[in-house]
């Protein structure tokens, strides 16, 4: 739609016309602020815990488990140096054989969600699919934070009261 708009404006005499082709989806996926009636509604990106511990593929599970638990967490996200998400370890995976490498212990390719998804929608998805936590990533796969089901359910409850 925007290419047609850009060309039409040029034909109307506008000499300097640009097309942000990747559009509103790109903007929202980057977790950037918007204006409008949805702007004040909580979204996945705002609710995601940014302090979630991360780890690398080649680390030993026992070392990661100690680090994660010392920070008060029962989950960690596996990322590379660009913070691109490769996997997730929840409580069950963290409790595995400590001699394993993270690449062996992790749940690979977890479902991720974009930061702009409204909390109400996320709450339904996470409850329906029994997801205790879900990584929130930008459209290019970079970690924004970990969204906990209890956080998003509480946010929706508060919004409706």
């Amino acid at each position, binding site marked *: 739609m*925007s290419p047609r708009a850009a060309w039409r*404006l040029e034909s*109307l005499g506008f000499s300097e016309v640009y*097309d942000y082709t990747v559009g509103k989806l790109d*903007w929202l996926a980057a977790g950037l602020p*918007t204006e409008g009636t949805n702007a004040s509604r909580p979204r996945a990106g705002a609710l995601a815990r940014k302090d979630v511990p991360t780890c690398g593929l080649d680390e030993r599970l026992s070392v990661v488990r100690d680090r994660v638990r010392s920070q008060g967490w029962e989950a960690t996200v596996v990322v590379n140096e660009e913070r691109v998400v490769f996997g997730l370890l929840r409580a069950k995976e963290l409790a595995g054989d400590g001699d394993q490498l993270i690449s062996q212990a992790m749940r690979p390719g977890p479902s991720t969600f974009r930061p702009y998804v409204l909390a109400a929608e996320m709450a339904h998805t996470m409850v329906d699919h029994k997801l205790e936590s879900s990584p929130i990533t930008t459209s290019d796969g970079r970690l924004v934070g970990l969204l906990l089901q209890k956080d998003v359910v509480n946010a929706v409850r508060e919004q409706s009261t």
Partner: protein
Amino acid sequence: MPKEIDRDGLRRMVEAGAQLVEVLPAEEYAEDHLPGAISLPLRHIDAEGSEVLDKTRAVIVYCWDIA
């Protein structure tokens, strides 16, 4: 010929005074739009484009995505 622009370029140009225009239907604009954008749905461009926008300044248009 219109030029493509990315997110960083958009921010720079808006700061420099470019006009930012969402061409989606007004209902979608009302729900969510980029900060500072105005609504000019595609079907209204012929009738309102020259009135609403300043031809002496750069214009950036956007919709939902590349489709």
